[in-house]
């Protein structure tokens, strides 16, 4: 029964992805100023949403771990930081590829791009920290603290990113594009699709990591018995 439910969700996700691709490339009109490159915006923004959802989940599960001391929350935290990092990387790369033809430069110190870059650094350091602690519960506490402090840092990062370069090219901001109703629909479809994908990935990764954790503990126990 459970497997069937899983498969159902997977099929729905695949179908939604088809719909999302169709709406982006066929249904949505081509933007007049920027041309076809603007179509990258839908999945760029959706990836950013997924990354933000992930970091928020990591923040909440960090707090819950420190209160409950249940390793379940640690596993959810790692899974979400991992997903968040993957999608932040996608946001950065698509941002660069979008900026090149439109602004004629690979990188601008636009507040949003800068924020994404700094977030990428913060959460990449999460994995460096993780790899340098052996004990499971110590590691969980340290990582929870980093996830909490990192997320609290986000608004300040965004605020300060506006200062980054005072003289930067006049950029065409996503918010200032007059979006046709078809574009709004397209955006909503791809946001929905990515959110579903996020939920699926988080569920799947959490399950795998929980199992990995149990197997590791069991193997250790077994080693003890054999010795």
């Amino acid at each position, binding site marked *: 029964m459970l497997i069937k439910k899983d498969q159902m969700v997977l099929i729905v996700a695949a179908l939604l992805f088809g719909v999302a691709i169709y709406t982006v490339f066929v249904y949505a009109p081509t933007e007049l100023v*920027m*041309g*076809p*490159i603007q*179509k*990258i915006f839908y*999945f*760029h923004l959706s*990836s950013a949403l997924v990354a933000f959802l992930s970091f928020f989940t990591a923040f909440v599960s960090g707090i819950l771990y420190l209160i409950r001391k249940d390793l379940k929350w640690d596993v959810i935290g790692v899974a979400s930081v991992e*997903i968040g990092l*993957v999608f932040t*990387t*996608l946001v950065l*790369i*698509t941002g660069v*590829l*979008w900026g*090149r*033809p439109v602004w004629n430069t690979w990188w601008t110190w636009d507040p949003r791009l800068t924020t994404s870059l700094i977030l990428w650094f913060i959460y990449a350091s999460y994995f460096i920290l993780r790899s340098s602690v052996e004990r499971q519960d110590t590691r969980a506490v340290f990582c929870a603290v980093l996830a909490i402090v990192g997320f609290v840092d986000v608004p300040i990062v965004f605020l300060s990113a506006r200062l980054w370069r005072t003289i930067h090219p006049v950029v065409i901001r996503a918010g200032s594009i007059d979006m046709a109703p078809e574009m709004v629909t397209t955006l909503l479809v791809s946001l929905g699709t990515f959110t579903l*994908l996020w939920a699926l*990935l988080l569920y*799947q*990764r959490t399950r*795998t990591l929980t*199992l*990995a954790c149990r*197997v590791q503990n*069991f*193997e250790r126990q*077994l080693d003890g018995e054999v010795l």
Partner: protein
Amino acid sequence: MSSELFLIAGYMVIWGGIFGYVFYAARQQHLLAARVQVLEELIKEMEHRNG
């Protein structure tokens, strides 16, 4: 013209990234399943030996 090229590159990155990640997750799960199987066999063997 080059604008389309960048669009294609962008989508390749997104799809490549997502599929790469899903592939990585699936592979980890497979490896784990193999480990669980080894453990199960080990336990069976031990039970067999103990009685």
